[in-house]
């Protein structure tokens, strides 16, 4: 008998639950001001998440998926990306989209049911939210192939959930990315739940990271609630991709502290103790403790930050509520580069219907 395959999965963590360094933090995280900047982004993202929830609960926003609890993951990955890299997000990466430069107004428009929200001013090349689980993993392979073909030093970053790792498209994409050694980083945001299905029902694999091993892809696990660790692992993966070293699969461990979406009630399928325990591991307090301990942050700064975040999300919400409604023309005008003649009558009918609606409201 011969052993013809063997693998190990490294798991990375720098900060413990209380924000104490378990080992010396990497060089890229030794600049306190950089960490403070990322901390500010995390806090702002959480304020924005809460604002979105409030808007939804008062009937002013559609169903949306909260990202509470994964701020370190999103900001860590976002901070490792460069401007002209390409992000392919799911619906739970609002914070990462913010980090990429998408505005709160654009995100609110999208979740408020208006496609104009995905026509963001920056970054022009990022993909819109993908709702069909893992379909975008295959798009990411195409993006990365195009980047490689043109010999550009850019990277595609595809984020998906633990549930997404069960899909064929994820495996097809991993396999393709491995064969062509593409500049592509897959980030599995393992928040332990896929709606009501827990991680252990999703797969018998000990880690989700090891799914990359079969595709010949360097794969690593990281504490997704440790900003320093996520950023470090993402930087390594990005550097590998950018220098022609091919793809990486990163499994980032986190926890979905919210319901699946605003249309879900997680108390139906998971117990409160588990959630309370998960709150002990949430990322923002952990980084705050670390910064306080370093002397890079203080209470007054924290208060000022919360106040400023509140003002920013308030202003964004107001801008969103004041935004003019979309025209029915929106359904037709970007269906194709130019609307085929076959549908011009339908466009006119839709426009006429708008007039009738408006008249109805006026009356």
């Amino acid at each position, binding site marked *: 008998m011969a052993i013809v395959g063997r693998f190990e999965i490294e798991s990375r963590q720098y900060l413990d639950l209380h924000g104490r360094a378990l080992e010396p933090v990497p060089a890229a995280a030794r600049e306190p001001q950089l960490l403070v900047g990322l901390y500010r982004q995390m806090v702002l993202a959480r304020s924005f998440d809460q604002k979105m929830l409030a808007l939804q609960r008062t009937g002013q926003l559609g169903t949306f998926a909260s990202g509470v609890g994964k701020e370190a993951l999103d900001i860590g990955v976002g901070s490792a990306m460069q401007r002209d890299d390409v992000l392919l997000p799911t619906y739970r990466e609002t914070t990462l989209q913010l980090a990429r430069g998408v505005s709160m107004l654009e995100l609110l428009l999208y979740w408020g049911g208006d496609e104009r929200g995905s*026509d963001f001013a920056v970054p022009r090349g990022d993909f819109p939210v993908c709702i069909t689980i893992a379909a975008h993993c*295959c798009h*990411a392979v*195409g*993006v*990365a192939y*195009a980047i490689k073909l043109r010999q550009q030093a850019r990277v595609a970053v595809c984020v998906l959930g633990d549930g997404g790792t069960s899909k064929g498209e994820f495996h097809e994409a991993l396999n*393709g990315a491995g064969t062509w050694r593409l500049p592509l980083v897959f980030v599995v945001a393992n928040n332990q739940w896929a709606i009501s299905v827990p991680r252990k029902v999703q797969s018998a694999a000990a880690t989700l990271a090891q799914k990359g091993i079969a595709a010949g892809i360097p794969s690593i696990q990281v504490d997704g609630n440790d900003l320093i660790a996520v950023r470090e692992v993402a930087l390594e993966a990005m550097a590998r991709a950018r220098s022609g070293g091919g793809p990486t699969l990163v499994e980032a461990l986190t926890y979905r502290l919210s319901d699946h979406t605003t249309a879900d009630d997680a108390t139906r399928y998971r117990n409160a103790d588990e959630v309370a325990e998960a709150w002990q591991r949430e990322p923002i307090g952990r980084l705050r403790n670390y910064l306080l301990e370093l002397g890079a942050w203080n209470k007054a700064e924290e208060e000022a930050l919360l106040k400023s975040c509140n003002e920013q999300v308030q202003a964004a919400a107001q801008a969103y509520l004041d935004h003019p409604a979309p025209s029915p023309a929106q359904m037709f005008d970007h*269906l194709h580069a130019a609307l*085929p003649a076959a549908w011009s009558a339908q466009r006119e009918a839709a426009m006429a219907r708008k007039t009738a609606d408006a008249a109805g409201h006026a009356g």
Partner: protein
Amino acid sequence: MPQVTLVEAVNMALTRAMSEDAGVVVLGEDVGVDGGVFRATLGLLERFGPQRVIDTPLAEQLITGMAIGMAVEGLKPVAEIQFSGFAYICIDQVLNHAGRMRHRTQGRLSCPMVLRTPCGAGIHPPEHHSESPDAMFAHVPGIRVVYPSSPRRAYGLLLAAIRDPDPVVFLEPTRLYRLFKEEVDDDAKALTLDTCFTLREGSDITLVAWGAMVHDTLQAAQRLEQEGVFAEVIDVATLRPLDMDTILASVAKTGRCVIVTEAARSGSFAAEIAANLAEHGLLSLFAPIARVAAYDVVVPLSRLENVYLPDTERILAAVRKCLAFG
């Protein structure tokens, strides 16, 4: 001008498109060294290299999905799905993503890709190799569906599809791949999409078909001419968006219409054309619209293929019934 088969015309168009635009890439199963199982991509690897002529792993969702990613990123991918039965799984990517990228981002991103697949029955293959998913694709918003029926139209329409700024599903009639040759000038000239082609003018009846059935329909028209009946034959060519103007104008002239499809009858694309005729052309009609289609059954294996498929005789029978009406 060379005499070429339909599959050679596809190859000519691919070669032309790849030489005029470095962004055009070809991907699929066995498209490289093997030149594709039907040889549609023959010689491309030698000429354009493995980076642009891409043998993919055996994964149809990957092929379709990565074509979408490439297109959004600015390439012009032409993806081949080896046989139509394996294109069903691609409908998800085409419907949920290719056809929506431009709309979803309000024009910020677009998806200029072509998904080619051989289509239809009549070559005695194993199961799943004789499917007609034309109506399924034709139901998808945001895409074009093109189905040539001759070498010349295959060349011109494929060039048009590749140059089009939006996604095109390009269905190729397997049965016609090598059935006959035609002179095709490799002149880089695209044909117009979104328009039917009137292949034969006539005043007595309009025969509408697409794909391989155009061939049988033309034969039926020839037979009718010997009997003194002049049939107008329209090749739909682009199923989505459908050029009803050409069909309506013809029916306004002839007053009678037979629609021929090799797909199973119920919910076939013939129904869409018939419904449009009923809505917009009812007063021109002297007789009920007739559909000649395959039966509402699973495409049989080769022994019964010829019974399943419509043929010239069935088309003629429908025409005679239509002419005899009223």
